[in-house]
């Protein structure tokens, strides 16, 4: 394969779990990116050069993520790699990226430590496009308190670092603001029946239920909670952001649900509408937050490569990526890359009533 030496194309590695437990999220991300790349190439590529994605499936497995990262960074002549979608696998892959000096961007590895080295310094070649868990968790706690909610129950995914990270940040901030955590319950990824824990929760005196988790489970939790008669406010993070949440939960149950996100289908925004239309056209379904982040990742990557100048190498691309002044504006909001390789962007809070997003507000984290 001499694709890399072909000066007409720019090769970009893609390292996601499109099979295994994270398949849903991985696939959405990849699809978003593919859509973006398709559009970019149709519009002439980057300075006339087409982007070529070298896709590989890491089976949602850490070892496989490392092996694929190695393969991409040593044999495929890529200028940067995208993914994985979850924090753990991203941490593993970033070690390879640093070793082989090829930058890596993850669209959705939210763990605070992803872009941090053992000694506390920032990873040289690792970036992310999403919030840190602590940032979102803190925002949610502040929002709940601002709404006058002081007694929270947390129902999280004990098998997910995302959920754990959110929980930790939320708890800290909530307590700091004089809120109390009334109870904590847990599920594990893939569960479909949540009634046992919900029955426990129902017996508690609380005013907000925080579900740090992804829409696949959250949708069912909300449905089962509302069926059991839990009518309190429900809070979630960007893992909620998917039409599937509403389908699974059922419109009648999705009331008083609030979640943080970068992007929302509810927003009045032409770019977002175009994206949704194009995505539906391409893949026959509604996009979720992963798809949106993947889509933005496509454009952000292209933007960075363009900024790298004529000599497109991993080094120049890395330089462009780490440029904290460059502003990027996409459907998940506009941001610049922070010094810590985490984007600086504003959080939006979406309110669902009767299954419809009725309100989207920008939220400033204090």
């Amino acid at each position, binding site marked *: 394969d001499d694709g890399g030496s072909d000066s007409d194309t720019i090769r970009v590695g893609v390292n996601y779990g*499109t*099979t295994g*437990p994270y*398949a*849903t999220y*991985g*696939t*959405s991300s990849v699809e978003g990116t593919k859509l973006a790349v398709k559009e970019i190439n149709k519009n002439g590529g980057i300075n006339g050069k087409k982007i070529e994605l070298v896709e590989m499936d890491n089976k949602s497995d850490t070892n496989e993520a490392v092996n694929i990262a190695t393969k991409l960074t040593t044999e495929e002549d890529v200028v940067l790699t995208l993914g994985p979608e979850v924090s753990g696998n991203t941490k593993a892959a970033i070690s390879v990226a640093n070793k082989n000096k090829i930058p890596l961007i993850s669209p959705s590895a939210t763990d605070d430590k992803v872009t941090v080295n053992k000694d506390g310094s920032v990873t040289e070649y690792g970036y992310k496009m999403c919030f840190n868990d602590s940032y979102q968790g803190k925002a949610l706690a502040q929002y709940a308190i601002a709404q006058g909610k002081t007694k929270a129950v947390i129902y999280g995914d*004990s098998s997910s670092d995302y959920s754990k990270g959110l929980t930790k940040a939320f708890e800290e901030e909530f307590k700091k603001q004089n809120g109390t955590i009334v109870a904590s*319950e*847990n*599920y*594990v990824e*893939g*569960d*479909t*029946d949540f*009634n*046992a*824990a919900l*029955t*426990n929760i129902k*017996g508690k005196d609380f005013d907000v239920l925080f579900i740090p988790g992804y829409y*696949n489970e959250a*949708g*069912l939790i909300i*449905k089962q909670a509302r*069926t*059991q*008669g839990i009518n309190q406010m429900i809070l979630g993070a960007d893992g909620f952001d998917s039409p*599937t949440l509403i*389908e*699974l939960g*059922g419109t009648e149950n999705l009331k008083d649900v609030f979640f943080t996100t970068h992007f929302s289908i509810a927003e009045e925004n032409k770019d977002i509408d175009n994206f949704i239309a194009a995505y539906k056209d391409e*893949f026959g*379904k509604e996009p979720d937050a992963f798809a949106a982040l993947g889509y933005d990742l496509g454009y952000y990557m292209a933007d960075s490569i363009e900024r790298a100048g004529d000599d497109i190498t991993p080094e120049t691309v890395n330089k462009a990526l780490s440029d904290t002044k460059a502003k990027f504006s996409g459907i998940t909001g506009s941001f610049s890359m922070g010094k810590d390789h985490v984007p600086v962007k504003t959080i939006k809070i979406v309110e669902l009533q009767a299954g419809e997003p009725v309100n989207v507000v920008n939220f400033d984290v204090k």
Partner: protein
Amino acid sequence: MSQFIQQLINGLSIGSVFALIALGYTMVYGIIKLINFAHGDIYMVGAFVGYFCITRLASGFFGLILALVIAMAACAILGVIIEKVAYKPLRNASRITALITAMGVSYFLQYTMVYFVGPSKRVMPAPFENTVFKIGGITFNLSTVIIIAVTIFLMLLLQYVVKRTKMGKAMRAVSADPDAARLMGINVNQTISFTFAIGSALAGAAGVLIGIHYNSIEPLMGTIPGLKAFIAAVFGGIGIIPGAMFGGISIGVIQTFAAGYISSLWQDAVVYALLIFILVVKPSGLLGKNVKEKV
């Protein structure tokens, strides 16, 4: 008290789901001693067939019946094909070899489905109004009632078929000694195909009903319930049909009480610990007889 009853109902509800899948598991195991890891995936295929029936062909009560019939038929055929292609050549091989093959079949079904429909969750539309009953502070769904009823009905039916009918006796004879069974004039291949057809049809029915119950389906949905159902079958005494029912319900109730009264963090650990404890006390499962081999 009402919380206790609610948890009991929650447990029965999950348990009946495991039981329904475990029935087919135990049936196949009882006859050919194969841990058919693909059973959970046949259940998944059943759910998808049901999904396409309900969304494309008909809805309402008629839709449900149609979906059940078509899903059961499709899964029966699928089960028979799988047996012919993947398991039959391995009849005389070690059981662990067959288990690995079953694992291979399981991957194949899962990822072929992913290839065609993608990995995402889909919402299974309910063909009937899934009424929520509220009595006192206690709530439960119509679908739970249906699943429990169907499970009990199928258990009785299966038990009757296996214990009383000629085909059932042929199945048990084949299980005990295939060569001797042939000497009785039993068609071993046909009997095993029949077993797979029934077991897979059960999985198909389970797929439709459980898909409706949780109103969601996905290509990997079979893995966890499949594993839990297998555990349930062992718990009740593998190969014993009422054992599957009993094991499934027990696992469901234990899991729920563990989550409700111990810790949801440790619920699976509690289930496993109790499972091991019970197996140590009753090494052939709850309903299994501990027959010592006659020497």
